[in-house]
C-alpha cells in the first residue's frame, strides 16, 4: 500500500504539472472565444498554445512547479500501517528528480533550499475521511505568484464582505496571473477562513447565484488577462462558508492563477 501511495503521488504530480484539467481548459477556450479585447484574446490564445506545447513535450507548463500541496480522501475502512505524510513526501522527492520539478521549498528565514521540495510542514496534506475503502489523492501544486496575493481580512460584521473581495481583487489581480480562479472562505475563525478558501479552490467551480454574480462583478472590472485589460479577469469562483463569532467576520481570498493545475489518483 505504501508503494502505491508513493507511485500515485508521482503520477498525480506528473499529470498536474504537464496538463490542465479538461474543465479548466474549456473555461479558457470559452473565454478566448468571447473576449472582445484583441490583446486579451492573444494572451488567452498564447496560454492555450503553451498548454498544448507542455502536453506534447511532457514539460511543466509553468516553471513555477509550485509548493507541494495535496488533498487526500481516506476511506474509513482503510487502516494504514505507515506514515501517509512520509509516503507522499517520498513521491514528491522522486517527482522532483524525474519530472523534473524546480526545487522551491526553502527555510522561511535562512532561505536554505532542501533541493527536493520537501521539508518541515511540506508536503502539506489536507486530509478528509470518507466512506468506503479507497484512497483518493489530488496533487494541487501551488505557484507563488498567485499564493502571494492571497489574504485574510478580519472584517467588521457591519462591512460588506463582497465589496472587500472585489476591492482586493482589483488591487492584486495583475500580479496573480489572471484570468483567476478565486477560492473564498467566509466566516469561521482567522485560520479556518484561510483553510476554507484553500478548500474552495479544490471544490471549483462554484455555480451558485451568489458565486456567479460575484464572478460577473469581477469580470466587469476590465482587468483582463495578465492585468493588461480585457473582459476576462476571473474564470471561476467558489465560496465556502462556516459559522463565525457574532463579533467577527473573517474573509479569506486564495488566489489561483489561470494555470489551475490539479490531478487525482485513486487507489482501490
Amino acid at each position, binding site marked *: 500500500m505504501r508503494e502505491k501511495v508513493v507511485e500515485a503521488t508521482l503520477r498525480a504530480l506528473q499529470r498536474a504539472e504537464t496538463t490542465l484539467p479538461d474543465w479548466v481548459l474549456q473555461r479558457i477556450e470559452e473565454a478566448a472565444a468571447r473576449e472582445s479585447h484583441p*490583446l486579451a484574446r492573444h494572451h488567452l490564445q498564447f496560454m492555450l498554445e503553451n498548454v498544448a506545447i507542455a502536453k506534447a513535450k511532457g514539460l511543466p507548463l509553468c516553471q513555477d512547479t509550485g509548493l507541494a500541496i495535496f488533498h487526500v480522501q481516506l476511506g474509513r475502512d482503510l487502516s494504514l500501517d505507515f506514515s501517509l505524510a512520509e509516503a507522499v513526501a517520498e513521491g514528491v522527492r522522486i517527482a522532483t528528480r524525474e519530472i523534473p520539478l524546480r526545487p522551491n521549498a526553502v527555510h522561511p528565514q535562512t532561505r536554505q533550499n532542501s533541493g527536493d521540495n520537501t521539508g518541515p510542514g511540506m508536503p502539506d496534506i489536507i486530509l478528509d475521511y470518507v466512506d468506503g475503502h479507497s484512497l483518493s489523492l489530488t496533487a494541487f501544486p501551488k505557484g507563488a505568484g498567485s499564493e502571494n496575493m492571497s489574504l485574510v481580512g478580519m472584517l467588521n460584521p457591519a462591512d460588506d464582505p463582497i465589496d472587500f473581495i472585489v476591492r482586493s481583487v482589483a488591487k492584486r489581480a495583475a500580479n496573480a496571473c489572471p484570468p483567476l480562479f478565486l477560492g473564498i472562505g467566509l466566516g469561521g475563525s482567522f485560520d479556518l477562513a484561510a483553510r476554507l478558501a484553500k478548500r474552495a479552490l479544490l471544490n471549483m467551480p462554484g455555480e451558485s447565484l451568489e458565486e456567479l454574480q460575484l464572478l460577473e462583478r469581477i469580470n*466587469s472590472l476590465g482587468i483582463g488577462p495578465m*492585468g493588461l485589460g480585457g473582459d476576462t479577469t476571473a474564470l471561476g469562483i467558489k465560496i465556502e462558508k462556516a459559522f463565525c463569532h457574532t463579533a467577527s467576520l473573517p474573509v479569506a481570498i486564495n488566489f489561483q492563477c489561470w494555470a489551475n493545475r490539479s490531478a487525482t489518483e485513486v487507489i482501490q
Partner: protein
Amino acid sequence: MTEYHLRTPLSGADVEKLLAGDVVFLSGPLFTARDKAHALMRRAGSPVSLEGAALYHCGPLILGDRVLSAGPTTSGRMARYTDEILRMGVRAIIGKGGLPGEPFRSRAIYLAYPGGCGAAAAQQLRVLGVHLLELGMAESLWVFEAKEFGPMIVAVDAHGKDLYQEVRRSALEQMLG
C-alpha cells in the same frame, strides 16, 4: 499597436520608439535575475555587463543545459532595485505584473511576457551560460540566447505611460461608479 522584432543589446533609439501597447519579440542575449541575484548585485555589482541589456525576471526550470520551462516571475518583488538596475545600463526589464513606472522615464521600458507560459517560453530560449549558480537553480543569473522571444507587450514605456496603472485606475473607477 505596432509589432517590433528587435535584437539585444538594445539602443537608446530602440527604447525611445517603443510605445505602451506595442508588441515586441526579442532575439539575442537575455539575462535572468530574481530576488537573490538582485540583492547580491546591490552588494557586489553585476557579474556581467548589463549595458543595453534585457533583464528577465525569471526563475527557470533547467535540466543540464536544456531550458525546460522559463516563464516570467512577479516583478513587484524586485521593485526596490529598479533604479540601481537601470543605472547599470539595463534598457528593458521583462517580467509579469509590472513595476512602478517612474524609474523607467527617458531610459528604459518594461515588457510583459504572458505569465504561466513557461513551456512556450522554453522553446524560444537556450542556455549560453550561468553565473551565481551558488544561489540555486531558480535564483542564478542565467544567460540565455533568445530567438524571437515573445509576444511581449510594452507595458511601461520611456514616455511615462503605464498600462497596468491605467487598467487598475479604470477598475477602481468602475467599482466606485
